[in-house]
């Protein structure tokens, strides 16, 4: 069988262009799979290592103030392993040369020794020295955003007191891998940062000597988490405890988990589509390649080669091509996967990267590709082997053509002879034509997927920031204040308009399901600046009674309009109230519950308290307003809207664009591979017929028209089909990607349709050109001399 092996390599070399195109599609499919899965694996692995190495706490609770002695009682709770108390304070930060307000979270670190949990990973500089009250370690994201280095100075207003701070180190914490300010969805490291400060120094500035307002704990192995939470709540409730929660509700961890879940969904969907398309193409192409060699199958059979040996021969041929693709795909995938993971590292703050490409991932990719190719090859070989050798060596009988419907409709005279040949050829083998169309359609669809993500995110941001949150800035108070604080803000020079809001952390409970969020109160008559919109983008008025909530939240809690939801407020006297659900709103971002401001305060038993205000100010006046706000002791922070949009595009946009670019590149090569292979196979199948036409006096242009015209017709028909497929996949992705953070709407811009169509058409033109060159070199005599 040595000679068969020689034939194998010669055949492979002879079809190298086509083999390369096939391998390219496999490279794309396998690479997408390897990128997605390895990125996700690496991020998970990295997070686990970081949590383990830096002792990420398992329980968290904030409170108003408790004496240090309470920590002993917390330690005594069964199931609680270790306990660490801390002081955490909101601050307004001031970085020289940056005019806008910055919110800061200042967290204490023990004055001596390592923290028992949530340890810091120092990137630069050193830890805070014991006894120094002006030294801080800054979070890396914040430091990088402001180009701060150890030794730099920043200002801070903590608890209404201005303090000059010196940066001595830059660090990372497992608590702030996803460093996002309260109420924000995306990180904005320029306007939000975390600082770590010595316990004694922070306590002194914050009135917390001998006391704490934040507690973390780890659990003993096998302990009941809920039991520990309940006991902690009971213990800390008299001290203004805001409710203990586990990692699942810890902001950074929850966001990471959500993001990983979404990445996981993408890691499932994209590779399935890409590998699916590759497998499909492979199956079709391989089948037709083998059919082209049916006379050789015949001759080998005539000489007594058993079917198994012949099958094996073609399987080897195909597997070789596939393995080249798989190897390339794993290489490209590992390279891009590492790059992608690095990119995520800039977004999520991890100290190190464990890039992980599991052998099973590579094996799965190889298996799927090889299996689909082998199935395709075997189907074709079996078809050829089922024939008697005599039959296999005879040229295929002429196809059964029919006059097509178009012609019968009386359009015969309109169609030229070549056009009629195209029409009949498409109609003669409807299954083959449909498969070609489906292949090209899928290529078109995956070209859209990258862009569609971008379209949807653009639409979401537009709705959120230009229609719903129209305020220029959001002021957050240190603690709930009276309505007088609002008039004070309104009277600031430059402020044009101000609207109050109330936000109260709460746990919503319905049946056995619960969700921790905040209830937001807005004036009932509706705001001009900040509005709640439904999915038709219409403002929704606050009901006089009852609560409105995001439809996604209602879905999670399993309730409907009219049900009564139990609201456990986690602030003040922590009342528990049953409130009717007055309606649902379909929002893209976050999971929210809304009430009329006054109804909310009534439920809480508080007067006219507000948590902050939405303000608008003319652009030229804003700086003055920021400055004035920085000096107000009751103001914990200010969030500037436009910056939020910009920061979103800065951070998210970059990641998304690169992802889109990679996906588009891979999708483009799939598109080209599919179209080129369709063209090449059509050429091989019909070269005899076309050469005969040339002999009869048809010009090169005319025979090209017949062959490429068919390709053109199929391509043009495949594009709308691709649009439909893309819509289906997008709807599926949107459904699967639904999360607390956001729900992606189905938005597809015309430009995305245009782009996908353009790439497919360019791929078709390019393939056409390549095939046209071969058509020009068609050897008329040789083709006519053999057989028939």
């Amino acid at each position: 069988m040595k000679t068969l092996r020689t034939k194998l390599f010669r055949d492979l070399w002879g079809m190298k262009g086509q083999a390369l195109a096939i391998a390219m599609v496999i490279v794309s499919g396998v690479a997408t799979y390897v990128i997605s899965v390895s990125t996700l694996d690496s991020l998970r692995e990295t997070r686990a290592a970081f949590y383990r190495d830096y002792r990420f706490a398992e329980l968290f609770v904030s409170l108003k103030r408790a004496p240090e002695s309470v920590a002993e009682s917390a330690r005594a709770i069964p199931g609680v392993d270790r306990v660490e108390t801390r002081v955490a304070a909101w601050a307004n930060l001031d970085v020289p040369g940056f005019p806008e307000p910055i919110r800061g979270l200042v967290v204490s670190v023990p004055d001596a020794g390592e923290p028992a949990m949530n340890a810091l990973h120092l990137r630069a500089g050193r830890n805070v020295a014991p006894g120094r009250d002006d030294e801080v370690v800054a979070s890396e994201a914040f430091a990088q955003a402001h180009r701060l280095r150890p030794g730099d100075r920043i200002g801070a207003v903590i608890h209404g007191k201005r303090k000059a701070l010196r940066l001595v180190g830059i660090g990372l914490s497992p608590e702030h891998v996803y460093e996002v300010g309260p109420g924000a969805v995306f990180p904005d490291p320029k306007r939000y940062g975390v600082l770590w400060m010595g316990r004694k120094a922070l306590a002194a500035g914050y009135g917390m000597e001998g006391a704490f307002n934040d507690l973390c704990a780890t659990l003993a192995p096998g302990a009941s988490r809920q039991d520990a939470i309940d006991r902690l709540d009971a213990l800390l409730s008299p001290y203004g405890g805001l409710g203990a929660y586990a990692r699942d509700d810890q902001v950074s961890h929850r966001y990471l988990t959500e993001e990983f879940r979404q990445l996981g969904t993408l890691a499932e969907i994209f590779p399935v589509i890409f590998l699916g398309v590759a497998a499909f193409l492979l199956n079709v192409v391989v089948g037709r390649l083998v059919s082209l060699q049916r006379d050789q199958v015949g001759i080998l059979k005539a000489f007594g080669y058993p079917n198994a040996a012949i099958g094996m021969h073609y399987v080897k041929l195909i597997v070789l091509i596939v393995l080249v693709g798989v190897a390339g795909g794993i290489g490209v995938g590992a390279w891009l996967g590492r790059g992608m993971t690095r990119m995520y590292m800039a977004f999520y703050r991890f100290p190190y990267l464990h890039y992980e490409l599991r052998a099973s991932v590579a094996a799965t990719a190889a298996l799927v590709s090889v299996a689909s190719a082998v199935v395709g090859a075997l189907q074709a070989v079996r078809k050829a082997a089922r024939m008697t050798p005599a039959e296999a060596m005879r040229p295929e009988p002429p196809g059964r053509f029919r006059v097509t419907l178009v012609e019968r409709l009386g359009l015969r005279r309109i169609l030229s002879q070549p056009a009629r040949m195209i029409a009949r050829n498409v109609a003669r083998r409807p299954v083959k034509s449909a498969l070609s169309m489906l292949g090209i359609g899928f290529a078109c669809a995956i070209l859209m997927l990258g862009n569609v993500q971008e379209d949807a995110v653009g639409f979401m941001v537009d709705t959120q920031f230009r229609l719903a949150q129209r305020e220029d800035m959001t002021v957050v108070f240190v603690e709930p204040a009276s309505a007088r604080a609002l008039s004070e803000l309104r009277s600031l020079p430059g402020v044009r308009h101000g609207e109050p809001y109330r936000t109260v952390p709460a746990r919503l409970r319905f049946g056995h399901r619960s969700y921790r969020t905040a209830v937001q109160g807005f004036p009932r008559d509706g705001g001009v600046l900040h509005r709640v919109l439904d999915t038709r983008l219409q403002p929704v008025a606050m009901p006089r009674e009852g609560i409105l909530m995001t439809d996604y939240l209602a879905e999670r809690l399993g309730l409907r309009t009219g049900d009564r939801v139990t609201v456990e407020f986690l602030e003040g006297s922590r009342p528990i109230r049953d409130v009717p659900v007055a309606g649902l709103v379909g929002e893209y971002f976050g999971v929210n519950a809304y009430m009329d401001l006054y109804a909310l305060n009534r439920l809480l038993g508080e007067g006219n308290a507000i948590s902050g205000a939405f303000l608008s100010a003319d652009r030229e006046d804003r700086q003055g307003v920021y400055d004035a706000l920085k000096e107000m002791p009751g103001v914990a922070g200010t969030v500037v809207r436009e910056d939020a949009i910009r920061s979103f595009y800065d951070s998210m946009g970059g990641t998304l664009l690169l992802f889109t670019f990679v996906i588009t590149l891979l999708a483009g090569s799939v598109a080209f591979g599919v179209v080129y292979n369709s063209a090449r196979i059509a050429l091989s199948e019909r070269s005899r017929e076309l050469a005969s036409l040339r002999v009869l006096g048809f010009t090169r242009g005319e025979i090209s028209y017949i062959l490429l015209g068919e390709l053109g017709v199929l391509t043009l028909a495949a594009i709308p089909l691709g649009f439909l497929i893309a819509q289906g996949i997008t709807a599926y992705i949107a459904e699967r990607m639904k999360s607390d953070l956001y729900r992606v709407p189905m938005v597809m811009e015309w430009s995305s349709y245009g782009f996908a169509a353009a790439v497919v058409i360019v791929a078709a033109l390019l393939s056409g050109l390549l095939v046209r060159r071969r058509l020009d070199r068609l050897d008329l005599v040789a083709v006519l001399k053999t057989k028939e």
Partner: protein
Amino acid sequence: MRNADADRAGGSTEAVFRARGVTKVYDMGEVRVHALRGVDLDLYPGELVVLLGPSGSGKSTLLNILGGLDTATGGTVEYRGKELTRATDRELTEYRRRHVGFVFQFYNLIPSLTSLENVSVVTDIAAEPMRPEEALALVGLADRRNHFPAQLSGGEQQRVAIARAVAKRPSVLLCDEPTGALDAATGIVVLEVLERINRELGTTTALITHNADIAGMADRVVRVGSGVIQSVERNERKKSPREMRW
């Protein structure tokens, strides 16, 4: 008459092939073609038989069935007492591999293999083959061993095909219009090769042609027409291919 044939074919009454009532119907979808309508034929060891007939007479179909390349619709074909018509696909494969050499009108060489490799394809799987070089030398192409089919003339390609067919030392050599695609001079060279192999190796040879002139080189000439055998004649004196012209 059959007995007389046997006597002339070297005294052995043991036929290599024994075909009885063979029919073949091709189902072409919209038409049914009766290629063979009941054929009886015996071939004896070492003889060279020419099957003569116009195109469409059914002679290729008959040869394909004898060679196990195609199956009969009805009737029986025995090869050395074994019934081919009841053989499984696996048995037919084994039969072709061990006993039959084919030569086709259009050579059917594998384009990606050299002359030598085209022969090796067969010797690789044969039980006691010649060396491929030896087979090529037999057809006078030892010096063209590393040429690809596309680099050979039609006659050379056909001689490679013959080398490929005889390299396994088959018991029967079945040739379907071996000179059909060749000019007269080249055709004669090819026929000489076939005649020499039949003579020197004693391979039972059946040769299809529509060219009556070629019939002169046969021991027996079987005329086929419209799917039946019309006559069987014995040549009293075999002509050498060199004496032929067409």
